[in-house]
């Protein structure tokens, strides 16, 4: 335990030196152990000096992206619900009671690219947790009636979401920007598919059998653990799980040929929201594209950008402006959001966003500003690794996209190598008018 802590400390404290002497320096400050069982289940174990606390993440590398069959969107998210229904060995109420007895903080979430089941608990309960988690992933069992009840709850969740302008905006922009790829629907799914879910009990079984397989899942355990004992436990609990993962057949999105725009009405009150979204690259830890764009987003539209100073602080025409560049398995959208105080200013703000992007194509960014941002990204990442849950939470997406943890060092290495010229080149490559999608959302009841 002690040696790991020292490594962690040195890793963080020498950061300044690393950045100036070696662009390839590792960023991830903790020692870890990885491996795979014969059935393909991959595990990552990260001991931390956090007395008693352990985080246990089961990262299923299936999200709404994998819902490729027409009429069947929303099933990845539905399983986030179904997984709490239990098995013949430990039915839902027994599972709940056992999790309650150990005082675990248990939850789950679903995204476009993955589904994540996570628990925080005390170290002495690792065996109980692994027993229950391995059981429900291998032996999930639910009756038609339970399935139908849960689909009703999901439809309720959809309706609740529609009361938020951002849910409406996301649904519209992805539907506008994608014609073929499954990113066309958001994680919760198309409304008509959710409505039809209660009739799809049999399909749900096939969804589970294809995707909830050891080859498609990574177990990440962080905190007060003994790695060798944990590996033996993993073999014991997950060793008999049969492989059988079937890859989804996802059609790539053809190149967008011309700019698209849509005006959307939200049934409620909100300040107008503008979303300018370009087709971006898939995430990669080693290629420069995503890393350069991530930096560009912050430089051009972040809190210290010229545009933020102009629109938020000086002119005060927008409530906020913010970039959100999707870190995804397949090419996703590079969003620039702005909430605008007066709807008369929408064209003004939109045109300033276009102008800013053109400027990044024609001029290299200030190298000092770029270095400041690179420093910020690294320190920001490190500072967030301050509890087992935070470490696991920050790694989950990296693991889901690539299947492993090595990508973290690769990505931050790539990020630190990005030059002003790289950013200029990526601006030119990706901020193309024909690849642009714009949504203007206004409240039906004004603002």
């Amino acid at each position: 335990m002690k040696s790991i802590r020292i490594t962690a400390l040195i890793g963080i404290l020498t950061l300044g030196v690393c950045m100036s002497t070696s662009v390839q320096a590792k960023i991830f400050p903790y020692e870890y152990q990885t491996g795979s069982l014969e059935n393909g289940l991959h595990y990552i174990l990260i001991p931390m000096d956090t007395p008693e606390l352990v985080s246990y993440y089961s990262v299923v590398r299936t999200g709404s992206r994998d819902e490729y069959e027409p009429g069947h969107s929303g099933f990845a998210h539905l399983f986030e619900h179904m997984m709490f229904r239990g098995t013949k060995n430990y039915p839902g109420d027994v599972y709940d009671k056992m999790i309650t007895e150990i005082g675990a903080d248990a939850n789950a979430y679903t995204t476009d690219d993955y589904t994540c089941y996570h628990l925080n608990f005390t170290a002495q309960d690792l065996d109980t947790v692994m027993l229950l988690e391995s059981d429900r992933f291998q032996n999930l069992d639910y009756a038609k009636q339970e399935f139908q009840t849960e689909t009703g709850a999901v439809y309720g969740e959809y309706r609740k979401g529609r009361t938020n302008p951002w849910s409406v905006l996301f649904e519209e922009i992805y539907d506008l920007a994608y014609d073929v790829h499954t990113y066309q629907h958001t994680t919760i799914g198309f409304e008509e598919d959710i409505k039809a879910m209660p009739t799809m009990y049999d399909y749900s079984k096939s969804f589970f059998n294809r995707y909830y397989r050891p080859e498609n899942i990574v177990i990440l355990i962080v905190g007060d653990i003994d790695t060798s004992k944990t590996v033996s436990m993993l073999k014991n609990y997950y060793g008999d799980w049969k492989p059988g993962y079937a890859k989804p057949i996802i059609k790539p999105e053809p190149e967008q040929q011309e700019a698209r725009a849509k005006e959307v009405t939200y049934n409620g009150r909100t300040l107008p929201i503008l979303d300018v979204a370009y087709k971006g690259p898939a995430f990669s830890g080693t290629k420069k594209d995503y890393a350069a764009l991530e930096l560009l987003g912050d430089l051009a539209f972040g809190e210290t950008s010229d545009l933020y100073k102009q629109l938020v602080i000086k002119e005060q025409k927008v409530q906020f402006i913010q970039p959100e560049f999707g870190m995804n398995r397949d090419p996703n959208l590079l969003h620039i959001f702005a909430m605008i105080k007066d709807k008369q200013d929408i064209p003004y703000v939109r045109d300033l966003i276009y102008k800013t992007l053109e400027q990044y194509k024609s001029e290299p960014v200030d190298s000092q500003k770029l270095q400041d941002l690179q420093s910020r990204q690294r320190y920001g990442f490190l500072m967030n690794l301050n509890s087992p849950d935070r470490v696991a939470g920050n790694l989950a997406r990296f693991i889901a996209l690539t299947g492993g943890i090595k990508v973290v060092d690769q990505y931050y290495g790539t990020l630190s190598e990005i030059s002003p010229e790289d950013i200029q080149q990526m601006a030119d490559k990706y901020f193309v008018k024909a690849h642009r999608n714009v949504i203007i959302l206004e409240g039906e009841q004004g603002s």
Partner: protein
Amino acid sequence: MKKRHALTIFGIILIALQFISCGGPKVSEDNAVLLPVENDPTISFRLWFKVGSQNDPSGKEGLAYITANMISDAATTNRSYEQILEELYPLAAHINSQAYIEQTIIAGRVHKDKLDKYYNLLTDVVLHPAFKEDDLQRIKSEVLNYLENSLRYSNDEELGKSALYNFVYDGTPYGHIPEGAVESVQSITVDDVRDFYTKFYTRDNVVIGLGGGFNPSLVSRLQEDLGQLPATEVDNANPSIDYKPIHGKQIKIVEKDANATAISIGFPIDLTRENRDWYALALANSWFGEHRNSSSHLYDVIREKRGLNYGDYSYIERFPNGGHRTMPPQNVALRQQMFEIWIRPVPNETRMFSLRSALRELDKLVDNGLSKEDFELTQNFYSKYVLHYAPTTMARLGYALDDKFYGVDGSHLEKLRTIIPDLTREEVNAAIKKYLQTDNMKIAIVTNNAEEMKMAMVNDTPSPISYGTPKSDMVYAEDQQIEKYPLNIEAEDVTIVPVDSMFQR
């Protein structure tokens, strides 16, 4: 997994440092809470000013909140706001403010490597705020957008809770949400902010909270630097909270075009953390409605068995922003707390049934207490679950400041882990009887067709329920009890207000 001494469970050692006098004015050594954490490469700051929305002058509701933001998110006399953002940027650090009813916190966390730069910025914003007109306009616009658009129209859960808080404490210094009201916020001027700052951001009204890998010299440096704050004595810092006693069930319906109904129920309880009863009631509350936890009994009845909504919880301490956090917040401490039930939005057609269901469960809790089995299960659960309340130094520092607020003898986090396993079922059930009841309470409801709901409540009209999917016989049998559970609500105790009038003045 070796057993570790209880003191190190949270990795905290609270120490009292002896300070060397250097002559100039400084913050008193009693006003420092220190949590050194060996090997933590970061330093956590929480500067607690003993001021909040309870100190807002009448007609200027929102002033404490806006003043805090004018410190954390605006220019100083040395730096423009843009400059502050530029300088914070490479540090990956922020200066945050949190102004609640009794406490205001200016907080941030920085890596040791960047301490000096961060320290200069943090002390600059606290000591030399510029209070510029354009910063005030920007911040006011954000607050107004929150009140007029977000709260009224796109977050019915928070709307219902805010309506309840204002309703329960109507006419007292707790009787408005920290963000204030539209007209009062509009009226706030730079002079108001400056006066408020001068009055409350004083040398003797600040408590320094420091956590993580700091050097002891940082403490004296901060004491001396914050010693530059004016020495003015704060007048009426803790105004009395003379809430009107509640007689019967008093209802406020916030009417809006909504397809789901949010319900919040509450009444004041005279109990805070310094009392052992608090821990007994906390255990009972954990069984009844632990926040965002499916082990909650209310959750089981309303969400799990019947699928009426997303979650149902209860509280014995204020829990702002519950939709966005899973564990309790720190530094929202209050001298006067309330018991609260939060029913997340249910379909309108089940609103009466859901309300009845929550009240009936509370009634059963008060009458029967916890069964032996439920008591033992919750005792096991809660004594371990609290470990997740504060996994980081920043959170533990927040708890340590709250210990000072409440006058907790020792550490609340440790007490949770020692007192909870020590409680008896009799103590817990006695605390339920002593502090909880179902006769006198206020209920805030956000819904449509308010008049129809009012009549249904006043007439105690039965509210049968049907489901899209089959349920167990036990559920159907219980539904028959719930649908006619008597509400005992008088017509004169129900008021209906349009959503646009909420938080207006």
